[in-house]
Structures are given as C-alpha cells and as structure tokens.
C-alpha cells in the first residue's frame, strides 16, 4: 500500500552513539566488574585461615583471621544480593524469550542494570506498615528471612579451599538455617493482618515443613556415600568426571537428586510450588502488604535462593567444584608448605575449581528458571499428595537402597564406574533426543532458528 507520508526514523546522532557506547561500558563494568570483584575477594579471603605468616604472634594471626572473616562475611552477603539481582535480570531475559518478548532492554545495555534501578526504586519507596498489622512482627519478619538466607553462605563451597567455614555438620547446618526462612514467611503472613497474607503464610508453612522431610532424606543419600556431613568432604569423595558424580554412580542417588531438587523448589517457593504467593489466587500471598525495603528483602531472598538451592544440589550430587584431571594431590602439591602464602599455580587451581562450580550452579539456576516459565502451579492438596505419596516414599527407597548399594560397591568397586558410565551415556542420549525435539519444535510451526536480537 502506498505510504505517502512515511519517514524513516532519524539516523542516530554521534552524541547518541557516544552515549550508547558509554552505557555499554557501564553495563560491562557492572556486569563483569562487580561479580568479578566479589569472586576475586572470595578467592583471596577464603583461604586466609590456612595462612600463618611467619613471625606473627598468635594474637596477631588471630586478629588477621578475624578481620579476614568479617570482610569475607560482608563479601558473601553482598554476593548473595548481587547474584540475586543478576538472576532477576537473567530470569526476565530468559522468560521473555520463551514468550517471544524482548524483555528488559532500557536500563543499561540489554536492560542489565534494571535490577539496580529496581533496587534503588524499592529503597526510595515509603515503608508502609498497615495500621491493623502487628507492627513488631511485621517489621521483624524480613530479618528472619534474610538471616536464614545469608547464613547458608557460611558453608557453601565455591572451590577447593574457597569456603567460609567447612563445618563438620555442614549439611545439617544448611537444613537448619534455611528453616528460619519459613519462620519469617509465617510471621509475615500472620502479622500483615490480611486474609491473603494469612493464606500465603499458612500454605508456606505447610509446604516448607512437609518438603523438609523428602529433602532431608534425599540429602542423606550423598551423606551415606561420603560418610560425612561436611560439604567439602562430600565433594572430595566424588570424582570430577560426570560418571564419578554421586548422582550418576548410584541409581538411587539419581532418583534422590530429583527428589531433592523438587523438594528444594518447594522450599524455595518456586513454580510449580509457588502457592504461598500464587498471584492468580492469593494476589501476592504473604507479600501482599509489604513495600519498600522490606519487600526488596523478600525479593532478594527469593532469587538469591536460586543460587543456594543450586549450589547445595551441585555439592551433594553433581561433583561440586571438582575439576576433571585435577586430583586432590595436585592441590596439595601446588599448595606448598602449610601456613605459607601459596604459589600462583595454587591460586590458579582455586579459580579453576570455582569456575567449574559456578558453571554447574548456573546451569541448575537456569533449569529452575526454565521450569518456572513452563509449568503451571499445583494445588495445595496436590502439593501435599506429591510430597507424601511420591517424594517421601521415593526418598525412603533411595535411602535404604543406597545402604545396600554401598555394600555392593564395597564388594565390587567396578559397579560404581559401570553405573556411572551407563547413566552418563543415557543422559547424553536423552539430551540428544531432547535437543533434536527442540530443534524440530522450531521448524514445526514454520519458524527458524534466529538468534539475532538476543
């Protein structure tokens, strides 16, 4: 058709081009620099406890370690906040592509700085407390949530020596402190004095307490296999190659991995278990009355939990930070004398192990996001029946099965390797078929693969 008055949009002026370059630079600085600095600090500070500078008195060494740990604590909490914000951005980008949308695209290049803008906006909002709410509990609830979230970072391993404190009861500690989150949610639901919040709080309490059981049982499987509750020990007892991972050397552990993963989804209130804040039923659930910074805390914890869930699952089942081809003796050799400042090679190995761990964790984070934007929400009674009729029996079977499996593996050590190779092969075949199906989906409706404008 004729378009007599059509006029193309004006060419971008040099000034706007300069501005776009500036935005890109800023985005890269924040996107690479911020996590880079945090990871760097984690790498630099975590092994501090093992270093005893020659000639320092005990008191000075203690002071050094104490200061190092305090800084590390600050770094880890900041890391939790940053990774949460970046997950929000990434989730929004991924979900929008799944829905044929562009998604965040205004603040910063690719909309990357949107999470900072959102955080600033939330901090500037008025902190409302409903007149009829229970003021003290209402104000206190977010702190339970954030404390339960931040404390888990104490035992989350980032690399071979990169852990704030390798507690002997590490896994037990994780399960305990995450239970604080549900206290916060329940308080929020009760104290808001809103019917929707109450519904959300009750649902959340029922859900989290129920799913603690399959999660705990499934987490016992790697504990049985490793013979320890310590996170680092559990990782070190696994191998680096996929066929040496807990989840793949033992068929029961594979099932336990899925049970654990599903239970973690439920504990993190992620779809399909987002009943406590089901927006089409409960408006915003326990969050209904929150605003401003307190709302931001819930937001932060919800997305920061993505990292925690994935990191714990990777630790327990997927080999943690183990780098293929780099055994523990290699670390030892590179470490040098105990107490001294390690050589450059050792630091390089630490960074390498951290990269492996981060890569695996981000993969699981993506899976969680992907599930969220695919599946509908289940109903509250189905949530219960899934837990008690499916997950708990499965977890029990896996637990008992692993007991016998360990006997078998002790008698016939090749069984673990054979299972590992077989399951890895099966996984690769399944992945192949899945990717083929995915590519066929694209052509089936007449679209084509087009990665421009990502």
């Amino acid at each position, binding site marked *: *058709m004729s378009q007599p008055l059509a006029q193309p949009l004006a060419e971008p002026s040099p000034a706007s081009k300069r501005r776009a370059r500036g935005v890109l630079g800023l985005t890269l600085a924040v996107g690479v620099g911020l996590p880079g600095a945090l990871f760097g600090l984690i790498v630099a500070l975590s092994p501090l406890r093992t270093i005893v500078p020659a000639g320092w008195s005990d008191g000075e060494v203690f002071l050094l370690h104490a200061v190092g740990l305090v800084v590390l604590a600050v770094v880890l909490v900041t890391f939790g906040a940053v990774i949460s914000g970046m997950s929000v951005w990434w989730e929004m980008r991924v979900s929008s592509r*799944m829905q044929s949308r562009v998604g965040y695209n205004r603040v910063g290049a690719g909309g990357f700085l949107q999470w900072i803008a959102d955080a600033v906006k939330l901090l500037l909002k008025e902190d409302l407390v409903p007149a009829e709410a229970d003021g003290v509990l209402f104000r206190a609830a977010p702190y339970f949530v954030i404390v339960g979230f931040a404390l888990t970072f104490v035992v989350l391993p980032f690399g071979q020596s990169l852990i704030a404190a390798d507690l002997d009861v590490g896994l037990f500690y994780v399960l305990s402190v995450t239970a604080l989150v549900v206290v916060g949610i329940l308080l929020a639901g009760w104290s808001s004095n809103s019917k929707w919040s109450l519904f959300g709080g009750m649902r959340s309490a029922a859900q989290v307490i129920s799913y603690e059981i399959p999660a705990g049982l499934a987490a016992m499987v790697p504990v049985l296999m490793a013979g320890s509750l310590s996170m680092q020990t559990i990782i070190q007892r696994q191998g680096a190659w996929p066929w040496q991972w807990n989840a793949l050397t033992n068929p029961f552990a594979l099932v336990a991995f899925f049970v654990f993963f599903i239970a973690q989804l439920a504990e993190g209130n992620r779809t399909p278990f987002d009943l406590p804040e089901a927006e089409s039923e409960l408006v915003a659930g326990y969050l209904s009355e929150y605003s401003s910074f307190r709302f931001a805390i819930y937001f932060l914890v919800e997305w920061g939990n993505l990292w925690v869930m994935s990191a714990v699952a990777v630790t327990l089942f997927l080999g943690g930070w183990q780098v293929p081809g780099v055994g523990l003796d290699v670390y030892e050799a590179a470490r040098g004398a105990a107490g001294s400042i390690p050589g450059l090679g050792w630091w390089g190995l630490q960074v390498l192990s951290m990269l492996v761990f981060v890569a695996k964790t981000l993969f699981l984070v993506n899976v969680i996001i992907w599930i969220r934007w*695919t599946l509908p929400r289940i109903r509250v009674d189905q949530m219960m029946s899934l837990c008690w009729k499916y997950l708990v029996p499965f977890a029990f079977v896996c637990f008992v099965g692993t007991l016998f499996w360990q006997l078998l593996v002790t008698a016939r050590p090749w069984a673990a390797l054979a299972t590992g190779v077989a399951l890895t092969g099966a996984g690769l075949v399944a992945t192949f078929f*899945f990717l083929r199906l995915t590519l066929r989906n694209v052509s089936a409706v007449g679209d084509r693969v087009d990665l421009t*404008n990502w």
Partner: protein
Amino acid sequence: MAQNVRAYAAAVGTTVRSIWHGMSVTLSYLLRRPVTIQYPDRTPLPVRDTLPSRYRGFLEVDAAICTGCQACERACPINCIAITLEKDPTNPKQRLVTQFDIDEAKCMYCGLCVEPCPTGSIQHTREFEASSADLRTLTFRWAEEPFPVYKVAKDATYYPRVPLGSILRPMLEARRWDARGPEFLPPAETPASAGPAGGGRAGASRGTGGPASSAPQQESEKKP
C-alpha cells in the same frame, strides 16, 4: 495392588513425558526471534507509517473540499462533531463554515462519520500519537478561519483531496503534550430557553436528547 502400582507408575510416567514436551517447547523459543517491537524509538519506521490504510486514527478534515452538508455530524452517534454554517456577510450566496469542531477526546473512532461524506473530506488518518495532559486540547478546530463550502460539480468523480494526514501531522507535531487548552467561559446565567442561534445549534441541542441526557435540577431533588 498390581493395578495400583501400574497406575502409580503411569502417573509418574505421564508427568515426566508431558513436562519433557513442555520444556522442549519453551526451550525452543529461546532459539527464535521475539515478535514484539520496541515502540516507539527502536522501530525501523515510525509505527503510524506501518499501519494499514484503513486504520482509524485521528480524524482529519480537508476544508478545501468540505461541502458543509453536516452528514458527518448527523452520523456521529455520540455528537462529538459540531458544524456551524453561516451566510457570508460579504457574499449572500456563499455559505461559510464558521465552526467545525471535533472532540477527539470523546470520539470513539467508529468511522461512521467517514461513510456518508460525499467528497471524502473527513477521513480517519493513521495518526494516533497525541497524548495530552489536558482534555481540552483534544478538540480539533477545522474552521479556525471560516471557510466557504465546496461546490460539487454535477458529474464529479474525483475530489482534489490533499494527501491523507498532510494537514493533521504538522498540527500534531506542533503540539506539546503538556499544552493547556483554552479557558472556557463560566457557565452562563441565561436560562436554557434562550433559543438556538445559528445553524450549528442543531447539533448542540441534539446533544441534550442523547443517551446521557440529564436535568440536574430535577435530579437533585430526587436524591437526598
């Protein structure tokens, strides 16, 4: 028992299979191009220029070929067009359109006024971007200066209409979104029975018979 076990296994199986398919579909969308556009500044063309020619945007009147027949005014179901015709004081045979106002804030863009127009003077354009902070600025005045009515030749098949949008677009581009509209006069004290003056009253007084006709004085008595 065996049946229960089979049902149990089947439930797990169908769940896994259906999720397998669903996740494959969502994953495949990561490989496709989004369909949304980034209005308004990141489109290859301004959106108004990509709209189909039948698009019903803001109304435009080409005064040069307006016959002053008031067909559009009569066709408008919500009386958002007001036309006043007067005799030219200098030339008694010539009639002038002294008022041709369209309340685009009220207009529902139904296109009924376009259909009876004998010359195609009133048309919907593809312009739609005229957000305004003040409703009063959305009354478009097509007879700022009174214009003579257009005489249609007997066997005319073609009317010299200027390109669609060429009058309206400069008008819209000259607007500021936060411009204030004209200050209206305070409500007149003269009673409503003052009687019509001028041909344009037909449209205005018809408005009182419209669906929302109201007599506020009577109503205030009914409502405590």
